[in-house]
């Protein structure tokens, strides 16, 4: 019996904590996002396409999930959802249009993480969502936003059992966030058995689930998500076959595991995430283009790539183009090469013939990758006379200083759920907001990005996208390093792993041979 249940159980080990059941809560961890994908349904979901040993999500194809079907009006201003007649909540009650409306209202109005995300899809007010008839709900937009539909497929807009949640709302918490924090009220394929925040979560399958692709039920009857802080321990758990999957192992471990026949490694360059070295232009001398260019020319890219992540990823350096970006994609190899002579020259031009003192920061939790990276950077910049003082900061300090724009030069990995070039530019290189690490303030770039956002014609859009990337390259607001691989290590019997935009394991996709 034990063996039987074991075969039908999926056991994931991760370094971080599952800390809430509702992804909209401030402070939710990425693991909680992944969890919410399996406990809650959304109206729509991204399709996925094969990729190497596994799959990767397909940003351009969206399928109905809790909705039976959807249609977008020609002018792109209304999206209409037809509901499934047979859809049920986990408590067995049927899914109604009221529930859907309430859930959508909740995402955009509740004080949570959802609202700011929906904003990027031009969904801001409850009155954009209307019930046409008991089986139909409509979303109205005030401008044709390409990202509206994709946004509905992201983590936040979960469909919740309004009748259930409403029993637990309070005056100062009209949307019941406090209750959904550790109670789940969804219609997803899995129901929460036990939830020990920061320790483990155990799910069992919801057999009345209808929203699956072609109505298929997920394979695993039981799912265990466990927090195992020590990477080495996670590795040995997999090697002994006690755990089935882990997606956050140390690059060094993964390297060794590739030789291990008892394991399978599905590695996907995170094409919506990238590690960079940001130059904060609010801190002198990084307001000086030449300085930025000098440093980008002085970085030992190859060594960093090899030493920090053991070459597991897609380089974003060493691009061969000079005039214009060859591809409309935001993340593509930039024309950066290690060339100390040039670097020295640029530094002299910039007015720092004998270099300057500066700091280089990264967060403690990323130390395993960034310790070697920092060492190499310090060594290499030293050669052109830049004296680097390395700061390894506790994560909270790091994020605070980043937000306050106090750090001079630092490294981090950014991730974007939406993968259109203008979205990248708007969210990561413009505006006085946290994710604009380089504090880049370039009006031309900004306006171009805005126009691109609402350009429907793909050809025109690609043209603009190329131009955007070219401008970014010219500005060198940061040194693009690489797209680190998402290395999912699984036991050979496990199949169907998908790399999702949220970079977490989606239990629905997987099965055991």
């Amino acid at each position, binding site marked *: 019996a*034990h063996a039987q*249940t*074991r075969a039908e*159980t999926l*056991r994931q*080990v991760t370094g971080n*904590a599952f*800390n*809430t059941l509702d992804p909209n*809560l*401030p*402070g*939710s961890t990425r693991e909680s996002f992944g969890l919410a994908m399996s406990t809650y349904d959304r109206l729509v979901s991204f399709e996925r396409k094969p990729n190497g040993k596994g799959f990767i999500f397909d940003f351009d194809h969206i399928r109905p999930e809790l909705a039976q079907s959807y249609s977008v009006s020609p002018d792109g201003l209304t999206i209409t959802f037809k509901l499934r007649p047979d859809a049920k909540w986990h408590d067995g009650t049927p899914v109604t249009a009221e529930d859907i409306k309430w859930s959508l209202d909740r995402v955009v109005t509740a*004080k949570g*993480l959802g609202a*700011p*995300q929906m*904003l*990027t899809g031009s969904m801001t007010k409850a009155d954009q969502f209307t019930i046409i008839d008991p089986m139909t709900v409509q979303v109205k937009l005030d401008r044709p936003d390409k990202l509206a539909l994709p946004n509905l497929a992201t983590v936040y807009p979960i469909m919740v059992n309004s009748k259930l949640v409403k029993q637990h709302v309070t005056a100062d918490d009209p949307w019941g966030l406090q209750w959904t*924090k*550790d109670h789940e009220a969804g219609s997803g394929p899995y129901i929460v058995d036990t939830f*020990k*925040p*920061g*320790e*483990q979560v*155990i799910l069992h399958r919801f057999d009345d689930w209808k929203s699956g692709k072609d109505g298929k039920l997920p394979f695993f009857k039981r799912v*265990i998500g*466990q*927090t*195992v*802080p*020590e990477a*080495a*321990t996670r590795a*040995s*758990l997999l*090697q*002994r076959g*006690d*755990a089935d999957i882990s997606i956050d192992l140390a690059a060094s471990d993964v390297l060794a595991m590739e030789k291990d026949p008892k394991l399978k490694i599905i590695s996907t360059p995170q094409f919506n995430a990238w590690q960079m070295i940001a130059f904060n232009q609010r801190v002198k001398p990084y307001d000086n283009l030449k300085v930025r260019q000098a440093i980008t020319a002085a970085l030992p890219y190859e060594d960093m790539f090899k030493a920090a992540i053991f070459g597991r990823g897609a380089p974003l350096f060493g691009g061969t183009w000079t005039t214009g970006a060859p591809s409309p994609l935001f993340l593509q190899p930039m024309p950066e090469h290690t060339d100390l002579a040039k670097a020295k020259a640029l530094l002299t031009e910039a007015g720092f013939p004998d270099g300057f003192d500066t700091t280089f920061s990264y967060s*403690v*939790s990323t130390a395993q990758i960034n310790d070697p990276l920092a060492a190499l950077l310090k060594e290499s910049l030293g050669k052109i006379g830049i004296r680097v003082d390395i700061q390894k*900061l*506790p*994560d*909270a*300090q*790091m*994020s*605070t*200083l980043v*937000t306050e724009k106090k750090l001079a030069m630092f490294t981090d990995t950014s*991730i*974007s*759920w939406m993968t259109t070039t203008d979205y990248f530019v708007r*969210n990561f290189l413009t505006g006085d*907001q*946290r994710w604009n690490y380089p504090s880049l303030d370039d009006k031309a770039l900004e306006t171009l990005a805005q126009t691109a956002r609402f350009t429907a014609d793909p050809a025109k859009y690609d043209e603009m996208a190329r131009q955007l990337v070219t401008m970014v390259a010219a500005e060198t607001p940061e040194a693009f390093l690489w797209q680190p691989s998402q290395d999912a290590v699984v036991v050979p019997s496990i199949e169907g792993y998908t790399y999702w935009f949220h970079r977490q394991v989606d239990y629905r996709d997987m099965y055991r041979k």
Partner: protein
Amino acid sequence: MTKLASIARLAGQRLLSSLPALLGVVIFTFVLMRVLPGDPAVFFSSGPSAGKQEIEQLRHQMGLDRSIPVQLAFYLRDIATGSLGHSMTTGQDVTKDLRERLPASLELTFAALILALGLAIPMGVLAALNPNAWIDHAVRFFCTLGVCVPTFVSGLLLIYAFYYLAGIAPDPTGRIDVFASPPPAFTGFLTIDSLLAGDSEAFWSALRQLILPAATMALFVLAPLARMTRAAMLAVLGSDYIRTARAMGLSRPRIIIAYALRNAALPVLTIAGIVFSTMLGANVLVEKVFSWPGVAAYALDALLASDYAPVQGFVLLMASVFVVVNLLVDVLYGLADPRVAS
């Protein structure tokens, strides 16, 4: 009778006199946390689309927009009402978290202490019975070796040897095999609960999980315990009343156990108390390595995230445990040693 009373009085005084210390701990931690350069509001609103207003709102929600004295006042009031605030890392109330996790730490620490004493006392006695003989040196050397290895290294090595290579130890994830169903929570000590529930499978599972981490910690505290046992034993064996006992013709085992060991136990008891309370707070690394759901690891994560409430709660808890344990030791000491009360 009167003795018990006087001991109780001593204990009472100790408790009262330690209240200022506790208050000091609370305030000190509170300020220390506020000194940390990290801003939890910013850190926890790090969703992929966190904006300024979200941070502000979170800051308000966490009450960080008030002045520090005001915050302290509120915090003290909350403590008085038995609430330790709210943890952002786990999204739970700190009291709830601690209540769930303290038993885990306690069980582990107790196991480690028992293991350590079980080894240290015989070794110490052996060493004391033949001072400067090879066995004495051997004991000293062995114990010292234990102290030399950082707990996280010995932990990882033990895992590597007994789990990864030999495969005899269970996977080092938490307190009980995930596939075994935990016993109904009663004391919170899984081993005890499972026995109460008469669930032998759960008991063994829990016990097996306990062994490696307990061993790791025990190794580290072996030295002080054995050292103290030896010293105390030597002192006692050299004392006049042992000579009297021998002169009266008492049998050797009786002398060693009923006379020598009982007297030597007193200082060992004191050290054991200290070791216990320090271990409880200091096994951060062990808990991390064995993914043990204890309070120390909990506090560590919170600390790195500048999550105030959990750290403050944890420190307060530890301090209280410290006080209680010392109290316990005092009382036991008083019961064992007539000289104390009078």
